């Protein structure tokens, strides 16, 4: 009796062990799927042009592709460095503008119940889900009339569609988590409302601001539709730029891979720094971690 019981227990342990290994195996399988494309990009980008189609995994690595993309890009007719800087300018500009405009709105929506605040919040949320082209096509016409086509200002303006809803919604949830009594205490300590906001509320949501700014930056950086339609050369960004290496009679895979990798570096680095705060940002504050 006892012998049989210990036998089943041992069987159970073995079974659990096998299942555990199977689970880890499944996990590894998924991550091979998730990571292999990135690894393959690195490989492609290091291939010399003459070995591009002749080999897969064995070749003489070279940084020529990066050199071409970053330095001598003009030779290929693709000013990639300029695209990179453009991305930086419009993404930073868009996040900056959204913060200046969105923080007070988020604070007001968190602290006061007033007519119109919910309407504003839901209008902003609907921007997040609206098909971009609904706004882009009229803007395409409008921008050409206003001279905003292919300009930084035009891009920063339209990127508000991406960054503003995110910043307002998430910062509202951060402000709402903050007890209003902290600011009330500051008012009684003799500070004005403005000072209570800047000295008490703002420092306490700083981690939230940092996280949401980075996330907004990433989304602005990764946006493709807006620059595709509303820019042509002057204000074009990396996401559109990376496509240009695929054009022409002979697609330059190694250059495309190098350009793709260069263009994903900023968002990846930022994402890894804010991993802890991502959940709330990605779900628009619907899920807190």
């Amino acid at each position, binding site marked *: 009796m006892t012998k049989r019981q210990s036998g089943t227990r041992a069987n159970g342990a073995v079974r659990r062990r096998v299942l*555990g290994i199977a*689970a*880890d195996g499944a*996990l*590894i399988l*998924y*991550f091979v799927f*998730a990571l292999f*494309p990135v690894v*393959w990009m690195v490989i*492609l980008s290091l291939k010399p042009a003459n070995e*591009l189609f002749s080999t897969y995994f064995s070749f003489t690595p070279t940084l020529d592709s990066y050199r071409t993309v970053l330095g001598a890009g003009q030779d290929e007719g693709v000013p990639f460095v300029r695209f990179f800087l453009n991305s930086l300018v419009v993404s930073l500009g868009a996040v900056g503008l959204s913060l*200046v*405009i969105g923080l*007070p*709105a988020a604070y*007001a*929506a968190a602290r006061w119940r*007033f007519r119109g*605040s919910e309407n*504003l919040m839901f*209008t902003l949320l609907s921007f997040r*889900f609206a*098909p*971009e*082209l*609904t*706004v882009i*096509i*009229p*803007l*395409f*016409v409008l921008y050409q009339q206003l001279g905003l086509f292919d300009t930084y200002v035009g891009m920063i303006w339209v990127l508000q569609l991406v960054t*503003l809803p995110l910043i*307002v919604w998430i910062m509202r949830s951060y402000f709402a988590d903050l007890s209003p009594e902290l600011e009330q205490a500051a008012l009684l300590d*003799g*500070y*004005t409302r*403005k*000072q209570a906001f800047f000295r008490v509320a703002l420092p306490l949501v700083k981690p939230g601001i940092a996280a949401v700014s980075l996330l907004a930056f*990433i989304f602005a*950086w*990764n946006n*493709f*539709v807006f620059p595709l339609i509303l820019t042509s050369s002057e204000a074009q960004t990396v*996401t559109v730029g*990376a496509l240009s290496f*695929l054009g022409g009679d002979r697609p330059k895979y190694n250059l*495309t*891979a190098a350009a*793709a990798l260069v*263009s*994903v570096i900023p*968002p*990846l680095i*930022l*994402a890894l720094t804010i991993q802890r705060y991502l959940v709330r940002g*990605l*779900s628009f504050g619907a*899920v807190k971690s």
Partner: protein
Amino acid sequence: MNSSTEADHGAASSDDAAVAGAPEKASAAVPGPPAERGVPKWRRTLRPYLLIVPALLLTGGILYPFGLGLYYTVFDFAASKPQPDFVGLENYRRIFTDSSFWDSAWVTVLYAVGAAAVETVLGVAVALLLHRSTLVGRVLEKVLILPLMIAPVIAAIIWKLMLQPSVGVVNHLLRPFGLGGVQWTDTPTGALLSSIAVDVWVYTPFVAILALAGLRSLPASPFEAAAVDGAGWWFTFRKLTMPMLWPYVLVAVIFRFMDSLKVFDIIYALTEGGPGDSTVVLQIRAYLEAIRFQRYSFGLSYMIVLWAVVYLAAMVLVRYLGRIQNRAAEVPK
């Protein structure tokens, strides 16, 4: 007391300076008349509105082109016709009687349902596996976010290179299994499935991250009770984990479904709608009509229809989410 504060305070609310009490009295140590000045009611009521004025203006700046777009759809505005005529609902009539609209709508729905479904199942599975917190899991979790942070268009480019029928690495790796010549993006079904695969590659981490956050926030006590009662894994998963996790997963599903209804980047870079019209989803169709062929009004009509569909889907799903969240709040903890 402290006599220097009047000036400091004046700086803080400058508009009150005019009615500030006689400052010379401030230095008197004896209790003076109060310095309080009432702020009129209308100014107090206005306070929150002042804070949202910039956001309102900006929102207006985005709503204006939207309204303009809506307005264009009752004209026949195109690059070839800069002086458009009013055509009423003609654009919409043309769309709804045009089989290519219904084809696009069908492809869009297939894409959205397919992508959202696979991502949900795969994402929840990955989250459950990561929740076991084995050594392997803890290491891999650090890079879970990676595909999600790559611009979808870049992801599509990456996959396009990998799926090249002749020189792509995927077929190279499949060759030993006798599957070397798969025409990934060159057949209608293959192109649609490939696009969905890229979507899955990019967005599964999104579902997994939200589900994992949900799993980690679930109360421990019901699970401990189930373990004490000797409940099996499947029972626990079906009766405890899933009902409590569902609100989190649903948030992810809603985001994914709505976003894939308006997919553009991935298909644009991977197939450009081809082969033929097989992957022309609604946003691609609108792009082709409005930007490529410069028939602004006609392309916009497509977008207005898609916008209405997305909006309706959102309303239904968000209402459902609210019900689920209420029910989840009642789950005994």
